[in-house]
């Protein structure tokens, strides 16, 4: 399989490491090799966090600017910040109000790069479902609805299921199913 590159971005505290773990565990269960890169230390105190995840037989962990297949961001500004990583024809998923996304200033660039932007208000949905800290799960589910890449919605949902501790399982799966449906309506 050709290496598939995911750039995940967001703010400190939004649970980007858990998000990475869900993708990575799913890929591992499918028998793929994975390499990723994370943010730690002083850099982590800054608020802007990014995680690179490469599924396939690659030797280096960082995704080159212009080489990511997917950019999934838990924050609108952090989606723009890491936009240069998306390749031509890459897919963009952001936690943002759909009617105002993307920012007009980048629409031309997205067009020329044939990048398809998709947005849902993941934080708001998570909040409404009583889990304000589950923007990460909401974005995974939203992304999974479009059936792109080597990890299916069923695979990702199963990983969320097994990695959610008892008291959170039901809530997490509810968020997953709700946000999956939001995505399905846009397909």
């Amino acid at each position, binding site marked *: 399989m050709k290496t598939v590159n995911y750039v995940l971005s967001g703010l400190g505290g939004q649970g980007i490491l858990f998000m990475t773990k869900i993708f990575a565990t799913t890929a591992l269960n499918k028998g793929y090799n994975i390499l990723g890169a994370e943010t730690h230390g002083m850099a982590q105190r800054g608020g802007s966090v990014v995680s690179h995840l490469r599924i396939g037989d690659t030797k280096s962990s960082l995704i080159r600017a212009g080489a990511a297949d997917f950019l999934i961001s838990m924050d609108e500004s952090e989606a*723009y910040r890491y936009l240069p990583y998306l390749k031509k024809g890459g897919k963009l998923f952001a936690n943002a109000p759909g009617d105002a996304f993307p920012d007009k200033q980048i629409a031309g660039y997205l067009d020329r790069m044939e990048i398809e932007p998709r947005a849902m208000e993941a934080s708001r949905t998570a909040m409404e479902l009583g889990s304000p800290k589950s923007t990460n799960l909401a974005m995974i589910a939203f992304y999974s609805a479009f059936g792109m890449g080597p990890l299916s919605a069923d695979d990702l949902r199963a990983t969320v299921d097994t990695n959610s501790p008892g008291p959170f399982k039901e809530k997490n799966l509810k968020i997953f199913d709700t946000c999956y449906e939001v995505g399905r309506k846009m397909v």
Partner: protein
Amino acid sequence: MKEEFLLGNGAIALGLLEAGCQIMTSYPGTPSSEILPEVTRFAKAENLNTSIEWSVNEKVAFDNAFAAAISGKRAACCMKMVGLNVAADSFMSAAYIGNIGGLVIISCDDPGPHSSQTEQDSRMMARLGKVPVLDPGNPEEAREMIKTAFELSEEFQVPVLVRPAIRICHARQNIRYESLKSNLTKADFKKEPTRWASTPKFRFLQHKALNEKHIKISEKFNSLTPYNTHNLEKGKTYDLGVVAGGVPAFVIQDLFAEYEREDIPILKLGAPYPFPEKFADEFMDKCAKVIVVEETDTVIEYMLRDKSKTLGRLTGHVPMEGELVPEKIEAVLNKAMTDCSIEPLSADAMAQEAFGLVQTLELPIRKPTLCPGCPHRASFYSIRKAMPKAIYPSDIGCYTLGSNLGVVDTVLDMGAGITMASGFWNAYIQDDVKKPIVATMGDSTFFHSGTTALINAVYNDSRFVLVILDNYITAMTGMQPAITQDKRVDGRKGNAIELETIVKGCGVKYLKVVDPFDTKAMIKIVKDAAEYAYSDDGSIAVIIARHPCVIGFRDQAIPEKIPVKVTDDCNECGFCHTSFECPALYEDKENEKTEINHTLCVECGVCIDIRPQGAIVRA
């Protein structure tokens, strides 16, 4: 067989235990900090008898490991690259003396830098200390190299340095492994004073022996596959070849695979020093030019020596500073290929355009800040309030971020909060100026290298106020236990060190302890301390600002939750979110009003006291 999606530092930890490392010491520092906790985790899970220690500094860690190694055990010592500076004296000397059991030093580099004060290249330290060095390209290779490092160290009786860069330490990779076993080699130190306590005469002989070892190790490195490899085709010559080590070597292999380019050979040097002369010459002979891509300095580039053929930092082809991220490496290769009339990999214009576009969006600047409820913020507020005109020398830790509050004027290295305070005092008092100075330093940093600084300052009658920010933990690097607490990293009991006793033992006569959450009390104490320090019969005044870290000890740090609200008395001066800089306070751009972000607020209540118009009150 088990499989984990391991942090690179976890892969290194696994490699250490697979190699039978018996003694492991470290001092935390990004990007090395997770190695020791991962060793602890594996040792516990696999029921190993590994001895694991957070030492008070890197030199102490090194010496502990060295003693174990000359007793015949396999020992390792881990640190960040600036930590190797602290251990440099031991490091250089140990190379001459050599060891019996394997001694592996892991010094993690931070090209970027992401979380460090320099971008120094540990391979340069290896060169300076005449210590063989291995330079891994990804977590899996780092894990394997640790085993090779131990074997080399025992074969040649010399310490071996492994230099993982941050992209290894904080990469993650799926790693498969088998069950681990304890190494039961017993300590057996054999006295040999001419070796272990050698005088200069014997040092000369040891130096000679070390140089002879280097010739043999270089010979070995000529064929140390798979770390040192090239893919020259027999009988073929090339217009351009790539010479690369560490992380960039694998990035380049991936790039060539992605662009399906097989016309440019790569010499990968994962074991660059002692330099594999013959192997490198073989490669150079077949290439009209070579481009050297290495992090972070010019180790291989200098050792290649052939100026007429070599492109790299010295010819302006490779940036002299900063991390060599893949897009930069791509640009470096494109330029070298173009210069050698070879078709480049790509036009690489699109990514540049995108970075430019992002610049124009004026995205929120997210600079590092202290956490909501951090006791350091309260301390800095009080210090500035009490002594607004002072010079504020500070140090390395979370509290370096006090610079955002204007209460950190200098950061040199670990321990310099105190040494620079005495230096400033001396510089001003020569002109008969009693300069107000308030130094700050964290508890872990104080034990690391503050005590010698304090003893020196007391003895030489320097005058300043020192505030030791005691939050019970080494927070910035990931919550390693402080030695003031009695629980060691592996759960065993430690003999907790009392900070007050040490400070008094340094000869300090004025010592007060305060909870920084009580800003009124702290302001008063800082003023009082300054009065004492600058009086004729005074001396250095030390204040311990003691409050547990809000992340490491959530319940203890906020014993009583004090929810707050902003009243209509607020005149939007912005002090609380710009100068006091609490991330939980912000200006709502639409209403132009100061608001509280209740998701971030930990309800410490400190802002009630600092608010200029008394406009933040208990909700």
